[in-house]
């Protein structure tokens, strides 16, 4: 805060003259010794601050230093120099990405679109599932039956992406003529018998078919997380007092009306919070799963920005700048989405995450 001369002076009413303000002198003194005071407090409580140090270091070196590396989207890459000393290239990479003329930039736009589509489908199909499952859990009054269901449905969350994608790729595997011949995967067979896919599609392997990447991604996503994510909603539902239901029942509410007027309002704040988180991570598609599920035949629907950047940036050092620019765009838009979603939620319903 900048002080003006008049802040130091007060009008002395008796004499009609200005004189120095004693309170301001005290404030000055305090301000002068503020950092000394801070230092002394830290010194006195040094154990507490020492505890903070490892965490700060870990986050600084491996969360914030990558952000510094990200600045190479403004630089001409040179392997021998740190990012700060590399030649500044302005927004040329961004312009190249936006222009949409080179194959790379078209690939980027495809990846960007895919990122949105995958997340948007996840929001439409993946988000309501845990809520529905939580509502179902609430119907099961027997504790033993409920814990059996919970154990089973939470389980996939703890299975690694590698195991999950391995199982998927074997369950929808292509047929092969090696040896005595290998049939298509069991899920492909099921779909074929149901008439959903033709024999050729099944034999070629569903993971090699761009039309099937998105359904597979979403279904495995639901399989993995729907049960576990229902914990939060279920906790909100069992917190509802039974008297609310009783009151509604006496008023003659059927199940639907109870849902509409008792359950939904009570868990609305939880839903809003989870929705914010979900929207916030809209552009944060799990790259590991995509990397493990996609191949060059399915880039059309499967390639997302982070895999685009990873593939190109690691393949050639000439592409590091432009790949970083793609990541930068993705991350900045993602961050704006978090902040935007949070602000809207705070204005609309007094619920906010951060």
């Amino acid at each position, binding site marked *: 805060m900048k002080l003006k001369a008049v802040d130091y002076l007060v009008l002395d009413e008796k004499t009609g003259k200005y004189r120095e303000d004693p309170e301001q002198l005290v404030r000055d003194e305090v301000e002068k010794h503020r950092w000394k005071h801070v230092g002394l407090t830290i010194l006195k409580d040094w154990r507490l601050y020492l505890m903070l140090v490892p965490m700060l270091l*870990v986050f600084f070196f491996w969360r914030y230093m990558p952000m510094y590396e990200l600045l190479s989207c403004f630089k001409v890459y040179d392997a021998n120099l740190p990012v700060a000393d590399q030649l500044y290239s302005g927004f040329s990479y961004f312009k190249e990405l936006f222009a949409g003329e080179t194959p790379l930039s078209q690939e980027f736009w495809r990846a960007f679109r895919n990122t949105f589509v995958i997340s948007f489908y996840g929001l439409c199909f993946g988000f309501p599932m845990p809520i529905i499952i939580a509502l179902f859990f609430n119907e099961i009054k027997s504790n033993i039956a409920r814990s059996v269901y919970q154990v*089973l449905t939470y389980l996939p969350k703890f299975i690694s992406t*590698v195991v999950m994608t391995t199982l998927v790729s*074997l369950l929808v595997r292509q047929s092969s003529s090696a040896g005595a011949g290998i049939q298509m995967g*069991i899920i492909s067979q099921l779909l074929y018998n149901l008439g959903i896919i033709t024999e050729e599609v099944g034999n070629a392997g569903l993971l090699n078919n761009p039309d099937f990447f998105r359904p597979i991604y979403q279904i495995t996503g639901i399989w993995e997380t729907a*049960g576990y994510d229902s914990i*939060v909603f279920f906790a909100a539902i069992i917190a509802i007092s039974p008297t609310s239901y009783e009151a509604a029942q006496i008023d003659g509410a059927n199940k639907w009306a109870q849902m509409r007027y008792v359950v939904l309002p009570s868990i609305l704040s939880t839903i809003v919070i989870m929705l914010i988180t979900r929207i916030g991570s809209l552009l*944060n598609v799990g790259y590991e799963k995509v990397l*493990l599920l996609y191949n060059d035949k399915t880039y059309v629907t499967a390639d997302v920005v982070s895999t685009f950047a990873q593939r190109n940036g690691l393949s050639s050092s000439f592409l590091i700048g432009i790949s970083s620019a793609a990541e930068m765009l993705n991350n900045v838009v993602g961050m704006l989405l978090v902040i935007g979603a949070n602000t809207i939620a705070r204005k609309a319903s007094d619920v906010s995450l*951060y």
Partner: protein
Amino acid sequence: MKRKLEISELIFKIISYVLLTVFALCCLYPFVFAISSAISGRSVVEQGGIILFPKQIQFEAFKVMFEDNMFWNAYANTLFLTFYGTLWAMGVAILGAYALSKKRLLFRKGFNFFLVFTMWFSAGILPQYRNYINTRNVFQSVGIMDDKWLVVIAMGMAAMNIILLRNAFEGVPSEIEEAAIVDGATEMQVLTNVYLPMSKSTIATVALFFAISRWNGYFWAKQMISKYQEHPLQVFIRLKLEEIQNPELIWAEPYAADSAIYALVICAIIPILIIYPFIQKYFAKGVNMGGVKE
């Protein structure tokens, strides 16, 4: 007094049971299928004859896998990464969360923001990769040649877990801490004798999160661990899968190539299945405290 269920309530109850059962079976089915396929004969597996139960039972796939030194090596590496990784992450997270939970901490808001910002904005794969390469160079220049230690120290920290712990510590009544301080406890004793026992369920949950993410970690382990014999199990499984998916593969074993993969997969999830039921009861308690507050 028990009230008679209204017809709509009854219908919903039945629907709940049916759909939940279907979903629970869907969650379980791939594992049952994997076990059956792993112990079934070659021709049945290749012809797609397994639906639920094993046929022409054989244990060759498991036997060959158990005789493979690379498998045990990968298993040991995963155990190493999980044990030290969880230990390191828990140590850092508990100390940091404890300090952050104290109201008297100066610049507390600033430190919190420092954490939360990493949840909003992450640099992305490529910059992280180049940052890890730089770290590896630094590590090698001070004589840490094993890439394992890089994976243990540099990776797997999550701001969310620290916030979970912080919220749990904030829930401990300050009177107990004051009593301990009056009795002459140091800062460290307050943490170990007051805070840790009082937030056991959150600590168990967070430790499980860390351990699971270590056990399941694949991408960075594959990118950063250059030596083949240091690869953890997940990388091993993936490489094996890519190996059998090669169309030119000639498979001469008495069991199907798929059975070998299924056997590996089962071995990779068994430890999780063993500890999971014990610790599952803590989840609901631990996770509920996960609201992010600043």
